[in-house]
């Protein structure tokens, strides 16, 4: 009898293919649900038919009128797609940050991406929306994006100047300092310009509700580059799990990999924050949830967090549309409100399983 190949076994006894199938089904289900539910528009069951009708070679009389189709395609779908992209990006960036810093409490905002973006938006709003209203392009996302990158770059410079490459703790502490500093400047600006506080907060707290296809076009190139780089480094993230020193004796250029992964994850995070505002908890909770269902190796974790993160944010965006209709609940509030209890239940399950 041939002995089974031990290393070809799934790391946890759970089949990676099975997890992949579940992930794909989750995404499809989330997209369908996200496009079916909303305050206006056609009866829910007509939506999948209308979507199928648009596919080539398929003709179904879905009974959806032109204006109802516009609601689906111009209002709901951009929102669903953007939520998917942003959720996937924040989750995969969170998983990668947790990997390079070997710290389970880390989220993609650790080094100041969100704080920088918030300050950038605040600057634009305090300078005046009237002044920029006539501009062909809204400067807020661009400034937020640039400030997010600049803040993380500054954190990295400060951290590596004093800690060298040997200590990632210094980098994390530098991040804490930079976030405090940036937030302080933002608070100061807001306090001096209290008339824009409301606008700034609604900008920061997540704006999936106003998503357009243009937003998606803006964010996609960064997200594609970022996730491609992170996917290519997933084996290195596994080696880093044994610590910087041991990884380096296994022939891995630790400092360079940390820098590349941080740059890639930050680029994607900054783009996501610039179009959607600050959506908390996704980057922390999704990677852990995926670990708890059995994907502990980064080779599996990185691709799966992409799918589960996308599905999670699409689903989290649904209750916000109907709960407080007609006003919208900010998506950042919903993710934390759903994410925190979900996370506690998962942790409990793990305790019991042990």
């Amino acid at each position, binding site marked *: 009898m041939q*002995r089974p*190949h*031990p*290393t*070809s*076994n799934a*790391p*946890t*006894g759970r089949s990676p293919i099975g997890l992949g199938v579940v992930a794909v089904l989750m995404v499809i289900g989330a997209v369908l649900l996200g496009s079916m539910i909303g305050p206006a528009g056609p009866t829910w069951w007509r939506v999948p038919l209308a979507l199928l009708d648009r596919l080539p070679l398929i003709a179904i009389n879905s009974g959806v009128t032109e204006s109802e189709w516009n609601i689906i395609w111009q209002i709901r779908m951009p929102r669903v797609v953007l939520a998917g992209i942003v959720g996937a990006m924040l989750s995969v960036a969170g998983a990668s940050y947790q990997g390079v810093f070997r710290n389970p409490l880390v989220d993609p905002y650790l080094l100041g991406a969100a704080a920088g973006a918030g300050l950038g938006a605040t600057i634009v709003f305090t300078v005046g929306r009237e002044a920029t209203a006539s501009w062909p392009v809204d400067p807020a996302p661009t400034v937020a994006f640039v400030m997010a990158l600049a803040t993380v770059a500054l954190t990295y410079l400060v951290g590596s100047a004093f800690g060298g490459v040997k200590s990632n703790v210094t980098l994390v502490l530098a991040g804490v300092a930079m976030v405090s500093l940036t937030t302080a400047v933002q608070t100061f600006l807001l306090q001096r310009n209290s008339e824009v506080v409301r606008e700034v907060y609604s900008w920061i707290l997540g704006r999936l509700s106003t998503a357009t296809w243009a937003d998606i076009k803006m964010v996609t190139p960064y997200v594609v580059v970022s996730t491609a780089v992170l996917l*290519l480094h997933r*084996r290195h993230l*596994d*080696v880093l*799990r*044994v*610590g910087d*020193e*041991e*990884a*380096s*004796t*296994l*022939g*891995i*250029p630790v400092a360079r990999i940390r820098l590349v992964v941080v740059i890639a994850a930050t680029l994607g995070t900054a783009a996501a924050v610039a179009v959607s505002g600050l959506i908390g908890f996704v980057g922390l909770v999704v990677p852990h949830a995926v*670990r708890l269902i059995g994907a*502990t*190796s980064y*080779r599996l974790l990185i691709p799966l967090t992409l799918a589960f993160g996308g599905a999670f944010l699409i689903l989290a965006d649904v209750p916000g549309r109907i709960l407080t209709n007609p006003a919208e609940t900010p998506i950042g509030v919903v993710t934390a409100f759903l994410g925190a209890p979900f996370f506690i239940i998962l942790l409990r399950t793990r305790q019991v399983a042990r």
Partner: protein
Amino acid sequence: MSSIELRDLTVRYGRKEVVREFSETVRSGEWLGVIGPNGAGKSSLLQAVAGIVAAQGDVLVNGVSLSGRGRARRAALVAYVPQDPLLPDDMTGAEYVLLGRSPYIGYFATESRQDLEIVDAILQRLDLDQFCSRRLGTLSGGERQRLVIARALATEAPVLLLDEPTSALDIGHQQQALELVARLRRENGLTVISAMHDLTLAGMYSDRLCLLHEGNVVASGPADQVLQADTLAEFYGVRVTVHREPDGTVVVIPRREDLSS
């Protein structure tokens, strides 16, 4: 298979020299035991050879210098087992041993079929098959130590550096781990440099001992020459009796303070 030569290795932490101009050649298949009190520089020496800490001087494997060579090249020549290895709780045994193949896997590549076969063979050879899909967090200290040695073996490096390989183990597992290294040395012709606290075990398994004190070599040679009561008293500040078994084993027995006087 491969000899290793350490040439004038000096390690500094700030201004302090923790290892001073250490020179030693370890012949192919030889086991050098590095002993010395805490802070003597044993770990720093091994870390310098492994390339984790910066050092002056040179390390040559088979007469070829490692300096200026790539990290992966060094990893393929010198395997390092740290004193306190970091084993991720939720990694499986097979995944962990597979990390030892890292020096051979291209930057964007994944492990080949051959890598998996090598890991498989090592797991089987060290009788570790049953741990291949077990999580490291569920294993005992002795089992973990064998997996760490298996990972070092997976690098197929001809030189093995062991930093206190037995410090966390009970006496039975100490013997098991050291016997494993001895067997691998015999079967693969590995050249071994180990830092050890237990002087009796160090003398028993090493061909040669090298006593470090404040970064300097103060005694070196076969166990019965280095393990002398007065030498140990001078550099460890201990009172010991050194006993010689008929088979040549040197046993170091610590003595209590003389209570009668």
